[in-house]
């Protein structure tokens, strides 16, 4: 199963992911860093998620295969 993960040690809070896939990503109000609301996005959101992953300027996001 595919899953979206964020490495918040890299995140710089550009917010491109929030604009690109607002159903999957948000920003923490206190520090502005990314939060993945839906690590396993709905089928219709994957295209936007892939664009968000590719456009992240700090390389924070990636899509991983999990066993679960």
């Amino acid at each position, binding site marked *: 199963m595919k899953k979206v993960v964020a490495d918040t040690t890299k995140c*710089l*809070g550009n*917010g491109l992911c*929030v*604009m690109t896939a*607002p159903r999957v990503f*948000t*920003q923490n*109000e*206190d*520090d*502005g*860093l990314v939060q993945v609301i839906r690590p396993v996005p709905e089928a219709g959101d994957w295209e936007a998620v892939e664009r968000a992953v590719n456009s992240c*300027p*700090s*390389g924070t996001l990636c899509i991983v295969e999990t066993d679960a």
Partner: protein
Amino acid sequence: MASSTPSASPPAAKEGYPQLSTSRPVAASTEGVIPINYTDPPDHTRLRRALIKEFTVARVQSLQPMIAAVVDALIDGMLEAGPPLDLQSRFALAVPTSVILAMLGIAYDEHGFFHERAGLVVSTNLDSALARQAQPDIRARMREILREKEKNPEAHDDLMERLIREQIRPGNLSHEEACSLLQSLVIAGHETTASIIGLGMLLLLRNPEIDRRLRDETSTKTAEQAVEEMLRYWSTTNFVAFRVALEDVGFRGVTIRAGEGILPQVVAANHDPAVFTRLPKRMPTLRLAIPFGEVEFKRGYLTHGLHALPVTWQADCGSTGAEGTR
């Protein structure tokens, strides 16, 4: 590549950093503080994180009513003044100036001071004494305003007061680092947005059919797409991301040696025919099959165009699939 690889560094202090002029280094440190856009982690991360929550998508969206009020007031002012007038100074520049000053909590009376100097900072007239003095002037004024706000940082709950309460007082940022960040914000808040509003309006004035489509469109989605496309098309910030290689780094068959300067060209990336047009990507060797002088243009029609466009290409170079195009 240049923004995400740890082997390319922006600090101007490092040997080999590309400078436009020796008389006015773009990233000179002031009081020992280098501007945020010329720092590396961990300093860059710390400086940037001090401001991230002020510019989250949700926070910026929440500014929309304030920005709309600014826009309406400026239009009222132009209608009152009557035609003709300069849209660049009266509107394109006034919108971002008003917004950044309101966010920072600086009185609009100061806009002339900041506007004039922000313009000089991005000027390529590198040797003028006035241009050299612009950055120090902005920094000095920021120090004064910050010192004034530090007396009572609960008065207005603006960005500068939050920076004082949440970053300077707990010791995350030094006073001078805060001034440097504010200086970067006020400069960045002037020129880039003003440029794209002016150029965007010029594009609409020159292309009435695009203008009409946008006016007739009820969904804001189309306007958002138009703005994105204008940003790509005009690419107003071409000289902002210089780097120096910290170690040898390979990129698409080219080795950039340690100490060599890197000057990424935003305009070239934004107009890359391999990305932004389908036809040249899938038919890379496409060319005219006849001399240009023999191309038949339409005459005696209401529309301008071609009767025929004979082309040719190397038959083995075309791509049959649509993969990789957009």
